[in-house]
């Protein structure tokens, strides 16, 4: 049996693409097993955000190893499309996708499953957002006493949308993803051009894919700044930030998935009085304090649910961006070596579908999680 013969199976799997045989592959099952092992053991390694010890770490890497093996099997099978420099793009044979590239259909089916993943995260967020009283409402109701934590929903937007400086990383990310959607489609345009010099094509594709890669890195950098790092402000901007010299990260603000003693200055009656904001005179808390039935003070909140929904949803989106960076790294290097021609440009198109989907999700995540 010859490895180069497209009629016979390769050591890595079926190899008869040219003749339209089905892609009987173990790769999806191996990948699913690996992802399951990885996620279960990763979840088991933490409890309420606290690391539970090193016992689960080897299994986490086993899961990653199985994922890697599944990807290797898949890659080896797909790379066997091209035998002796030829490119085979198998077409679907049956209805309703007849004559459409199988990989294109597969990508859309994959994106459908992704839609379900993000819908489950969105519906969970809505359920908790509408089902748990907001911390502002609880504070103004006066149904709390200083020193005892109350469970309430504190949307991340309360911190993020509090000033232009706080919202800057998210706003930059919104533009970064929109621009990257454009750069990837430009890469595809030049990859498909036939009436163009090969060297010009190589440079154009590399530049546009490289730009997409850079914007993806920028996205995750901004995410790191927003979550963990914060950033300092030049002195002339301090007055626009209540006199503070830094923009705190969510971590520094105490907005954490295990935050059961969260405190914010806007839920402190002493702070509100001393800073001239004052309490809402229509609120029950104001009436209670006027009547002497509530001593006021600094409300303490358990915001684990709200922080978890925020970090899981935006983190899942960030993980998709990270996955895109891995793919873009490979594709940019391939483009730099002149690896893309009009015949195999569809790879950029299929990756582009994934990348546009990541952008689409952000179109919804940004207003609902960052601004509302």
């Amino acid at each position, binding site marked *: 049996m010859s490895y180069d013969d497209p009629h016979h199976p390769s050591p890595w799997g079926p190899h008869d693409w040219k003749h339209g045989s089905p892609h009987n592959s173990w790769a999806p099952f191996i990948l699913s097993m690996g992802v399951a092992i990885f996620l279960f053991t990763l979840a088991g390694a933490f409890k309420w955000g606290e690391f539970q010890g090193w016992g689960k770490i080897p299994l986490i890497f086993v899961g990653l190893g199985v994922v890697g093996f599944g990807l290797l099997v898949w890659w080896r099978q797909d790379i066997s499309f091209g035998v002796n420099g030829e490119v085979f793009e198998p077409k679907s044979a049956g209805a309703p996708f007849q004559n459409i590239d199988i990989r294109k259909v597969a990508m859309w089916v994959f994106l459908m499953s992704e*839609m379900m993943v993000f819908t489950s995260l969105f519906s969970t967020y809505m359920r908790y957002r509408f089902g748990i009283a907001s911390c502002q409402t609880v504070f103004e109701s006066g149904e709390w006493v200083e020193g005892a934590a109350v469970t309430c929903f504190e949307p991340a937007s309360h911190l993020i949308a509090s000033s232009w400086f706080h919202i800057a990383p998210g706003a930059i990310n919104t533009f970064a993803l929109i621009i990257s959607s454009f750069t990837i489609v430009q890469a595809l345009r030049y990859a498909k051009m036939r009436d163009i010099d090969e060297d010009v094509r190589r440079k154009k594709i590399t530049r546009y894919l490289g730009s997409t890669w850079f914007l993806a890195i920028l996205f995750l950098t901004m995410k790191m700044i927003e979550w963990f790092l914060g950033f300092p402000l030049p002195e002339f901007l301090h007055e626009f930030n209540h006199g503070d010299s830094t923009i705190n990260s969510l971590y520094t603000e105490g907005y954490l998935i295990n935050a059961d003693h969260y405190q914010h200055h806007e839920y402190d009656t002493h702070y509100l009085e001393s800073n001239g904001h004052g309490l809402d005179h229509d609120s029950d808390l104001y009436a209670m304090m006027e009547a002497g039935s509530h001593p006021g003070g600094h409300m303490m909140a358990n915001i684990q649910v709200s922080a978890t929904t925020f970090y899981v949803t935006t983190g899942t989106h960030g993980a998709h961006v990270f996955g895109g960076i891995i793919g873009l790294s490979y594709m940019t290097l391939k483009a730099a070596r002149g690896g893309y021609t009009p015949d195999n440009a569809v790879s950029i198109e299929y990756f582009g579908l994934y990348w546009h989907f990541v*952008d689409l999700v952000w179109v919804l995540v940004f*207003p609902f999680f960052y601004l509302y």
Partner: protein
Amino acid sequence: MAHYKIMGQDPYWMNFYGLMILTLMEVLAVGADLGPAANSLGTEEKVVTLWILTIIAIPKFIMIAAIFMHLYGDEDSGILTMTALFPAFFILIMILFVGLTHPNAASGLPDWCRPGNYGL
């Protein structure tokens, strides 16, 4: 690839300009003082902002899917659009029956749908 024009121009560039303008509008909507508008509508400023952002997000969503993801103008656009819309039913179910249910829904169920009381 796109085989059509938008207002006589390249569709990708036109789509890009449109998306940038809509995104700028989003950012401006967040920064704008919508308090008077909210008062006249008898609601909170945040709710007005959310409505504006949602209304802007819809054309952004369609523009990315239709033009960048080629769900418009290609030979296979029709069937792939149907494919992309297929999960809409499940999304509707999840939004309606998970996202918008009452927090006491589980404990407030009528007797006939509690365990051991299946209406028999």
